């Protein structure tokens, strides 16, 4: 390289360096970008429902003096995908003397009754009773449970009696 003067020498090395840099840049790209990852994330929200079948919409007892024993008033289907389970509660409108009760529309008289849910007696510490307390989710089709009502025969005051019960589900 002794024959090169200084100006042309600098020019040559600058050009050569440019070419070398281009080479290196192309190689790095090929080495580092031959794969790429795409993270995926999905969610399933908590969905809890209770459904009452058609047989339990409104149940009418034609003569309450005769009493009733274990009459099916509804079939409740519990469905919940909460991973910590769920709770089903029942709230009764005319809770009286520590018992769920029918109430006369005119007289205000009450006729107590009892409930069973899925074959077990429902206990009322107050107007709200716990029907189910599960630590796990239900299956896809849920769990169907019968709600039955009983009351004793008696010489009740003539009136029109009614009550309303409300069933609620919540995930734990």
């Amino acid at each position, binding site marked *: 390289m002794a024959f090169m003067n200084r100006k042309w020498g600098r020019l040559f090395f600058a050009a050569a360096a440019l070419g070398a840099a281009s080479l290196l840049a192309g190689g790095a790209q*090929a080495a580092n970008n031959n794969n790429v990852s795409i*993270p995926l994330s999905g969610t*399933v929200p908590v969905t809890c429902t209770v459904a009452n079948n058609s047989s339990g919409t409104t149940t009418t007892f034609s003569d309450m003096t005769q009493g009733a024993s274990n009459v099916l008033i509804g079939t409740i289907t519990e469905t919940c995908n909460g991973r910590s389970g769920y709770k089903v509660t029942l709230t009764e409108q005319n809770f009286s003397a520590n018992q769920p009760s029918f109430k006369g529309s005119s007289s205000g008289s009450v006729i107590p009754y009892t409930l069973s849910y899925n074959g077990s007696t429902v206990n009322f510490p107050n107007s709200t009773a716990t029907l189910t307390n599960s630590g796990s989710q239900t299956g896809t089709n849920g769990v169907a449970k019968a709600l039955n009502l009983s009351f004793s025969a008696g010489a009740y005051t003539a009136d029109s009696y009614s009550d309303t019960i409300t069933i609620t589900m919540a995930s734990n």
Partner: protein
Amino acid sequence: MTFPQPRLQTFLYAGFAAALLGSTVFFALPFAEASTAQNGNNVTIGLSTIVRGACSISAVADPQAANIDLSTTQSNLAIATVTESCNNNGYTVSVSSENGVTKGQPALVGSALNGSMNYTVVYGGAPVNFSGGQATAFDTSATLPLTRRQVGIGFVGNPNLPSDSYVDVLTFTIAGK
């Protein structure tokens, strides 16, 4: 600017040619000097070129890839756009699912309860057939220009899956032939 001697001029021309050709050209300086020595009236510059195979792949994820509603059925939910670049005479794009290695096919797996939902992958509009969590998403024997392809997934929505966050990672790899 003083014009350089003929031999130096030849040497410089070779240097400029190399710079202009960038990463794709190597030049043979010894050839130039040897040729000059054999003939004083003209000069021949020998050039040897190597075009290096360069394949790269990149992806831009769609926002919904990070928040997929698994309770609703999807046939081809767009999750990303992949860009393929390869100057080889043919290349393949393979894809692997992180959970597919153990599940046998791509699956979103719950982080808390290990519930899982299988899903399918659509690459550039074509279904991808997995085996053991891996698949060839695209295969060509041609040299293609830079190509973008949409990635989608499909699954049967299941609102009764345990409530949870479900994750997986798809990795795309390009390899020149």
